[in-house]
């Protein structure tokens, strides 16, 4: 009797194993991993629903593959997606140049985790869905690894003012050509009792506000000590430049005068502060639809440019997909086919981004998307091309056109297309970046008293020298000269 039971159990286990291993249809399953920018946890049941709907649609279209979608919360994305990619569990990964750790675009390339799809792209629907400039801008060493999400792929920064404040003090925003022009307004805000006349949103902004002078090709604030100076078209150590001193001094001065609050450098400012009436002026990343700021912040704000718009090496990688190196050529072709469909088929794009119509979203009177609930909560910028998707409520009527025009008015940086390789100076580069938190961040957010700014900059420079920054700069200079020669 025991033996029979055992045998039966064995057979059952084998059957279960067989069934689960194989999959009902024998089609290839493309595993997609994407991030969820929500505060709540991922609702795995809803994701499965959407995944099934997508697969049903793919079947309808006659594709011979299916997808398996995994969503990971943004807070754990670096860790979990990184682990998943490293253990070869993923085929298509969403990522960005500003993500951290192992899934940053530059890290993925340097670790060899992404597939070179240069040869697989030409003549595909995906390739034709975006202009060549986008593909060129995302190349690494002449090879295509990433599929950019077509959105506002250029970089420009604006100053943002609360309308209530502007009206109160009758301030003319066009009078502001540089940061110090803000001071009269900030003074009035301070005297009027505002807690945050200038709201930095606890961000170190040297690498944003000064993009008219420098191309910060590393794409992150921790390494803003190195950049390409546009005027001289060469790699510079930014801490030696007058601009850095100027910015640090402005912020320190504003800190002393009370325009910049202590909460900035102690990282106390919350993201709901922008929705309150405690601030006067802040900053905003230029997008084709600046009017959405009003919705985001729950109040009327006025936006005015501070810098020009630039097309950098990293701006097109603000949100992109990549195919992992463990994906076979055959499946990679299918991945490209899927992405091509995603970038050209409106129905799929809406499904993939917003979820199930009627459950997660519905169309409003203007034919734009109104989201219902937060179970499956994605946006265009991290999903699909702006050219194909149904825009969300509050967007300009010609959504695709607005984006095309926006991207078209940018200046191309002299360093566009430059990719730096830090593997030869990896230890020094990491050590230098680790110094940002205690020096650079404080200098740029008001953590240093005005009298100490020069001393602190000197200290920062010394610490960087000790960590080996000269080696890093020399390496980048050499690479940049090679890049220039090859242009």
């Amino acid at each position, binding site marked *: 009797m025991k033996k029979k039971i055992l045998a039966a159990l064995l057979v059952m286990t084998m059957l279960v194993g067989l069934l689960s291993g194989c999959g009902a249809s024998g089609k290839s399953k493309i595993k997609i991993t994407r991030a969820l920018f929500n505060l709540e946890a991922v609702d795995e049941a809803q994701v499965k629903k959407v995944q099934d709907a997508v697969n049903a649609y793919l079947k309808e279209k006659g594709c011979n593959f299916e997808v398996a979608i995994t969503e990971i919360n943004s807070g754990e994305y*670096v860790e979990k997606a990184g682990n998943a*990619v*490293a*253990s*070869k569990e993923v085929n298509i990964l969403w990522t960005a140049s500003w993500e*951290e*750790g*192992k899934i*940053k675009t*530059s*890290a*993925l390339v*340097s*670790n*060899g*985790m992404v597939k070179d799809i240069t040869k697989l792209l030409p003549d595909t629907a995906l390739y034709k869905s975006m202009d060549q400039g986008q593909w060129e801008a995302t190349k690494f060493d002449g090879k295509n690894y990433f599929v950019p999400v077509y959105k506002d792929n250029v970089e420009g920064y604006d100053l943002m003012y609360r309308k209530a404040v502007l009206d109160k003090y009758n301030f003319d925003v066009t009078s502001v050509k540089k940061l110090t022009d803000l001071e009269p307004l900030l003074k009035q805000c301070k005297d009027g009792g505002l807690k945050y006349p200038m709201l930095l949103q606890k961000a170190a902004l040297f690498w944003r506000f000064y993009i008219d002078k420098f191309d910060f090709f590393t794409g992150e604030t*921790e390494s803003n000590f190195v950049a390409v100076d546009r005027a001289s078209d060469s790699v510079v150590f930014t801490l030696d430049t007058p601009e850095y001193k100027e910015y640090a001094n402005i912020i320190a001065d504003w800190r002393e005068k009370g325009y910049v609050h*202590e909460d900035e*450098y*102690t*990282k*106390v400012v919350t993201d709901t502060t922008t929705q309150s009436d405690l601030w006067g002026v802040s900053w905003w990343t230029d997008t084709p639809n600046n009017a959405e700021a009003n919705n985001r912040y729950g109040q009327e704000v006025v936006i005015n440019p501070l810098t020009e718009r630039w097309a950098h090496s990293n701006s097109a990688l603000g949100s992109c997909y990549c195919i992992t*190196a*463990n994906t076979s050529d055959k499946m990679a072709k299918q991945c490209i086919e899927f992405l091509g469909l995603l970038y050209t088929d409106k129905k799929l794009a809406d499904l993939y981004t917003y979820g199930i119509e009627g459950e997660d979203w519905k169309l409003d009177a203007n034919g734009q998307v109104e989201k219902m609930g937060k179970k499956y909560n994605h946006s265009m910028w991290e999903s699909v091309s702006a050219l194909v998707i149904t825009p969300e409520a509050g967007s300009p009527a010609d959504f695709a056109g607005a984006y095309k025009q926006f991207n078209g008015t940018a200046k191309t940086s002299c360093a566009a297309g430059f990719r730096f390789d830090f593997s030869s100076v*990896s*230890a*020094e*580069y*990491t*050590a230098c*970046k*680790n*110094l*940002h*938190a*205690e*020096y650079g*961040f*404080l200098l740029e957010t008001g*953590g240093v008293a005005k009298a100490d700014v020069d001393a602190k900059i000197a200290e920062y420079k010394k*610490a960087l020298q*000790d*960590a*080996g920054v000269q080696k890093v700069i020399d390496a980048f200079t050499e690479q940049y000269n090679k890049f220039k020669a090859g242009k």
Partner: protein
Amino acid sequence: MANTKAKKAEQVINAPVSAKKKNSLWYNTKKNMPFVIFALPAFLVLFFIMYVPMGGIIMAFQDFKPMQGFFGSRFVGLENFKFLFTSKDVFYRMTRNTIMYYFIFTLLGTFLNIVLAIALDQFVFKKVGRLMQTVMIVPIFISYAAVQFIVYAFIASDTGLINKVLGTSTSFYAKPGYWIVILTIVKIWNSVGYGSVLYMSVLAGIDTTYYEAAQIDGANKWQQIWHITLPSLVPMITVMLLLSVGNIMRSDTGLFFQVTRDSGALYDTTQVIDSYVLHAIINSPEYGFTAAASLFQSTVGLVMMLIANATVRKISPDNSLF
């Protein structure tokens, strides 16, 4: 005491067999087979959960690329350890802080654990004592992610409770000097109630006849504590201290990263090795760096533990770990 008695008893039970046979490991194991079986389940769990993944340590010496795996990645010797040492000042500071906090937390923490355990044990109103103990245990369940908000509530410069009560406006988040005290207080709040439970269990295991005898001899409470209670706690204290030495180079990242909000202004007294390593995870794509740092921490811990264990073995062999 129990050990020597056991030894004597064992000699009685194990009547002499042929000398050669008795000394072989194989014979000894066979004879003690039940003990082997007792150890087996935990042995297997440790093997599959801890030992198999331990192979990952090799990443510390490799230019690890996931696609090439552990066997295919290039060997780079001690290269990966460089990032820890390139900034000598930073290395010195974070090591100094790590060790300093280790001593403060371990010594002060153990002392307070014991004091609290004895205090609760001696307290006559048991019901009240139990209620108080429930409250003291709750902090361990509050994650540091939430604790950072509470700490902020107390020490914020304008709206913080301490500043409001004292009428001052000290900017705690800007001055590193205060943080040795702040972090210690937070650590104590979080862990002493919980940590005292272990010592209470030891106290409960003390034979009451000793106390009775001491009382008959006229000893007062303090003398009883000094001569009976404390010595009974020594084995557990020794063992816990020995175990903790192994982690001398590791820190509670929640405390040092989240409660301090990773504020650079405070690094002078709050940057420990683990916060530096956490930054490296965020800032660098190298797998080898964190593996190297971890190996460094483990090795130093091992050396310290061997030294400490050898010292204890000289003084009182019964209490050493091995």
